[in-house]
């Protein structure tokens, strides 16, 4: 087994909000391998811990327990040059296409800083050239973009500049946190396409964080479904989306408004999401689960059900001959 580029070992995050403990993320372990480049979706509702996971992977947030290892070394103890290497290779595209721009500067600033930092030797002309190439790679006309201020551009343009920033750096791993949720539907395809081409052309591993399973289904190879900080189901994207095993995933997938007259919502009524959720031990989905049983007060393990398909639900018997390691199933 080759060294993982980024390895999460029992990473969890606990917030203390006025004496109450909130488990934003329960211990999770998986690796992002360098090769072959893949797109992995982390899906969940707000409060599922998906953004916390992203921040921890990016090194913007320290985990409460566990370690994040970059090329085998703990990210929190990296030395100067190692840290720079980590910084260069683990990058992000964020949700809000406006907030990532410093309003004080022209949009060039966003592209120029990383070039200057990670390629300090480049001349001004060479920097300019790199910026232009990156913009063209995401389908933008450099002359229409450079020298402008962020408020002079449209949301779709701004979000593509964000993807261009990632191209300029050529990272090994890109965390894309809801990159299309604030962009008009007709422009989403362009941005998703740019992401997919990053994987194809630059061999970038992408962690695609989203609440939207339709786009996840389209761009990614595998999926991790989070609910209130815990993994409910994970595995190959087509398997999970086409035959979900966990009641929560089933609920999610059944709630997708497919733009398709053949796939209408069924008439099934689901447990009300407004009901008070009980915190504490046991399955996180217990209070909302239509199939809950008395045994569900015990926290279920994430177990393999089929090749490249895991779920954590007592309804299902694990397949003993299959690997239960999350990484191997992604």
């Amino acid at each position: 087994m080759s060294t993982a580029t980024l390895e999460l070992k029992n990473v969890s995050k606990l917030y203390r909000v006025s004496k109450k403990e909130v488990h934003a993320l329960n211990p999770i372990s998986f690796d992002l391998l360098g090769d072959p480049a893949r797109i992995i979706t982390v899906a969940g509702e707000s409060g599922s811990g998906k953004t916390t996971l992203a921040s921890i992977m990016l090194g913007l947030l320290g985990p409460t327990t566990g370690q994040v290892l970059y090329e085998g070394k703990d990210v929190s103890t990296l030395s100067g040059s190692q840290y720079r290497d980590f910084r260069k290779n683990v990058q992000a595209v964020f949700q809000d296409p406006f907030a990532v721009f410093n309003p004080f500067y022209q949009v060039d600033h966003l592209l120029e800083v990383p070039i200057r930092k990670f390629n300090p030797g480049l001349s001004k002309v060479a920097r300019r050239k790199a910026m232009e190439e990156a913009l063209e790679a995401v389908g933008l006309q450099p002359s229409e973009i450079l020298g402008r201020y962020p408020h002079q551009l449209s949301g779709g343009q701004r979000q593509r500049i964000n993807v261009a920033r990632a191209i300029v750096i050529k990272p090994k791993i890109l965390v894309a946190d809801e990159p299309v949720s604030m962009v008009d539907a007709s422009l989403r395809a362009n941005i998703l396409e740019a992401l997919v081409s990053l994987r194809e052309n630059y061999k970038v591993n992408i962690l695609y964080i989203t609440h939207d399973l339709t786009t996840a289904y389209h761009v990614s190879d595998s999926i991790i479904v989070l609910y209130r900080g815990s993994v409910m189901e994970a595995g190959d994207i087509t398997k999970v989306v086409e035959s979900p095993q966990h009641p929560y995933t089933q609920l999610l997938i059944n709630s997708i408004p497919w733009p398709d007259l053949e796939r209408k919502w069924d008439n099934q009524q689901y447990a009300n999401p407004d009901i008070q959720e009980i915190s504490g031990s046991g399955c996180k989905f217990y209070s909302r689960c239509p199939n809950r049983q008395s045994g569900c007060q015990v926290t279920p393990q994430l177990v393999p059900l089929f090749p490249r398909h895991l779920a954590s639900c007592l309804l299902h018997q694990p397949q003993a001959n299959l690997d239960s390691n999350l990484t191997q199933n992604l």
Partner: protein
Amino acid sequence: MEHLLDITGLTVSYYTDIGRAIALNQVDLKLKQGEKLGLVGESGSGKSTMGLAMMRMIKPPGKVEGGSVVIGGVDMLQLSDKEMLKRRLSTISYIPQGAMNSLNPVLKIKRQMIDAYKAHYPNHKLDQILQLAHETMISVELPEHVLEMHPHELSGGMKQRVCIAIGILLRPQIIIADEPTSALDVVTQRQVIETLNRVQQKIGSALILIGHDMGLMAQSMDKVAVMYAGEIVEINDVQTVFTSPKHPYTQALISSLPRLQNRGEFRGIPGMAPSLYRLPSGCRFHPRCNQQQPHCQTTSPRKSIFEDEKYVTCHLYEAS
């Protein structure tokens, strides 16, 4: 058949430092009682302006510059301000986009419902109003004790359903729901949309769902009106829009949708929506159209009307 809602030639502009932005240009729309219409378009296409204009809630620097909004034979745009105040909520009601912040944080839900009721029927008895409030809460599937709560004690989905409850309190003939689920999770979204459909069916009103999510339209609407740069370019029943769209913009929109069948295909619409301050000549869509013809640049297309008030605004269909 007589139409419940008959909008003709509705034109709205915004006047700012940069100039005049034509947010709605000569829009026509007819709707029958009990019909469910989805109004879709990207941001800036005028779909929200449409909803506000129907409520007569366009504020400066916006201005309604022409047309009529006739509901049950009465033109809303001709009413006095006072009469219009009475029609809001009782004839035509509006469920807002930002349910998170649409409820007054310092008043109990009960009080906010009573306020709405009393504004229209100041003489009704309080227990009568409360009775109705209770019934309405049940019809949006909220427990009655929510009436005694403050907005911050409710989840996003509950707040949205409180807004729906207020919206249907006076059994309006038309409900406009402006992106009612844009901030909600998919599961909650589904429940809110289903609730909306149920109450709409129960009180028999017409429903206009404003949004950009074609999925929601496919799931719950009868008709779809597609807006582009301040105009309705196509209005058709949901079947036709999804299976054989007419307007090139609708076609591009439909083929850009991610479905189960077309996994991994990305077909964005090339180009950008025009600025409302500088609209292209001729057909507003021509710079992005893949079936562009020479006269598209110079002449605006006329409506080609099909049966049952459906139409498409495109030169391709003018001959027939």
